[in-house]
């Protein structure tokens, strides 16, 4: 017999018997695969409450576990079947934090494509809910740093600072965070491309506009890298933004 969503069952709980006799009747062949039951007694219902109380997480209670979201999810289908939005919602509602923690290594891989939300017949904002689960776990210190969270924070910090994003700084800043040695000019402290370490593919790619003598494009991006584009009336707004984020505990981690 097939076990659907086998990845959800720990291997030690799956028993396969060669011969199985139940109450004197030989049922081998049909019923020789057994999943041992599991007992749960450490759930934290406050966790679920926190999710329901956030504006983007309140739809979590509409879920009736049909798994349509999981069936549509490209990360589940093409990457790792342990990535399972339906299951994450289930665990979060029961407050089974340790089970969620066990899956932390795949939970962050959601690519925000919203296929799940789009397909859900119960109107759950699935993607939003999953991100609230992650956010809540992070706030409670239940989850380690993971690459996309680092990147999200790095990105948001730039928005907070300048009001706008600049591709070059984002790219080189991120490369630096990954451990490459990026050389910066001494005055403006901006990264200098082509000096220092850069991954080979990126070097080749950034060489393309130079090789094709695309001067205008290079000048524009060089200018932006030197003088980060900013939103002008930003200072007062920035303070409010910072305040809100502090309230949400978004700046602490």
């Amino acid at each position, binding site marked *: 017999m097939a076990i659907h969503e086998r990845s959800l069952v720990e291997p030690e709980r799956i028993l396969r018997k060669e011969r199985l006799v139940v109450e004197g009747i030989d049922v081998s062949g049909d019923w020789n695969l057994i999943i041992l039951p599991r007992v749960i007694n450490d759930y934290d219902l406050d966790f679920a409450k926190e999710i329901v109380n*956030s*504006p*983007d997480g309140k739809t979590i209670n509409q879920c009736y576990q049909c798994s349509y979201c999981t069936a549509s999810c*490209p*990360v589940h289908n*093409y990457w790792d079947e342990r990535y399972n939005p339906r299951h994450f919602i289930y665990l979060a509602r029961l407050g089974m934090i340790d089970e969620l923690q066990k899956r932390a290594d795949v939970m962050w*891989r959601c*690519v*925000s*494509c*919203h*296929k799940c*939300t*789009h*397909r859900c017949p119960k109107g759950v*904002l699935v993607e939003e809910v999953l*991100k*609230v689960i*992650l956010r809540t776990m992070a706030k409670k210190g239940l989850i380690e740093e993971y*690459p*996309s*969270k680092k*990147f*999200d*924070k790095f*990105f*948001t910090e730039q928005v907070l600072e300048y*009001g*706008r*994003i*600049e*591709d*070059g700084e*984002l*790219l080189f800043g*991120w490369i630096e965070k990954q451990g490459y040695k990026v050389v910066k000019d001494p005055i403006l402290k901006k990264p200098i491309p082509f000096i220092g370490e850069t991954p080979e*593919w990126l070097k*080749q*790619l950034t060489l*393309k*506009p130079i090789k094709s003598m*695309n001067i205008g*494009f290079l000048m*524009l*991006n060089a200018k*932006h890298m030197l003088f980060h*584009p900013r*939103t002008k*009336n*930003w200072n*007062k*707004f920035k*303070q*409010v*933004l910072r305040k*809100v*984020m502090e*309230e*949400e505990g*978004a700046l602490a981690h």
Partner: protein
Amino acid sequence: MGVIGKRVAYYPGCSLEGASRAYDVSTRIVAKELGLELDYLEDYNCCGAMESKNVTFMGTMLLNARNMSLARKQGHDVIVAPCNGCSFSLQRAEYFLETDRNVFERVNALLREGGVDQLDKIPHTYHILEWFYHEAGPQKVKEKTKRPLRGLKVANYYGCLYTRPHFYARTYAHAGGQEEEVRPRKRDTADDDEHPYYMNALLEAAGATSVEFEPMHTQCCGGPHSLSDEQVSEKFVMMILQTAKRNGADIIATECPLCHASVEMYRHRLMMKGVPDVDVPAAYFTQLLGLAFGYSANDVKLKDNLSDPLPVLKRLGLA
């Protein structure tokens, strides 16, 4: 046609004024040719993209509300954005501001505190492709076409957020293959959710041929993780490129700077690794329309495209 308005607030978003300037330039060309007017949103800020919303909810509401407030100040009810991420973020804010009274009031109070006008009205946001389709449409494109894209086989790549989720983009209420009468659009300007066709229609009107590209046409490129989760993004882009190539595409048409960047970047990496069937170049759909309207490769900044579609277009006599 004509339900959105010919003059709208134009929210280019950060990338269109930097690495994706080709999209910005060609968008302006297409709008001008189609007789539409873009009113640049002065002093806008980043929409928070896919990243900030994972860190803060209220922060992203505020970021987008500020832009909405600027649009109102410039006298607009409608914002168009050429980026899937930007239009998603604005539509998402629109959704929460409209459906959650508490969020709306809180945001307004915070806007005032931050020295920005309160929102008297929540403007609607459209993806620029919807705008082109509804305000000009294939007929107008056909009229304006001087150099038809004859012989060009295009894979129309819409990416994920253009039609999704239906709560924000207001496409059909629910999937399931029914006819349009059975599942009406929530907004009569919205594209079909599972089988978007606006870009196909515009490019075909300009003379191009669409190749079979489902279901990859709305498959995610891994964009939000394109720097932080390279394995997943690489795999997704590989699937997209190979499907396009194996169905005979000369080129991939994009309508989002993030998808475009992700496709170009990973295409390069995949080619370096020697993965087969990934060498289809990408161009913004506005670049292709610009060419069809008689503009030169230089006018639509084709040299900016790192995947270099020039040889393909030259071979077909289109550039």
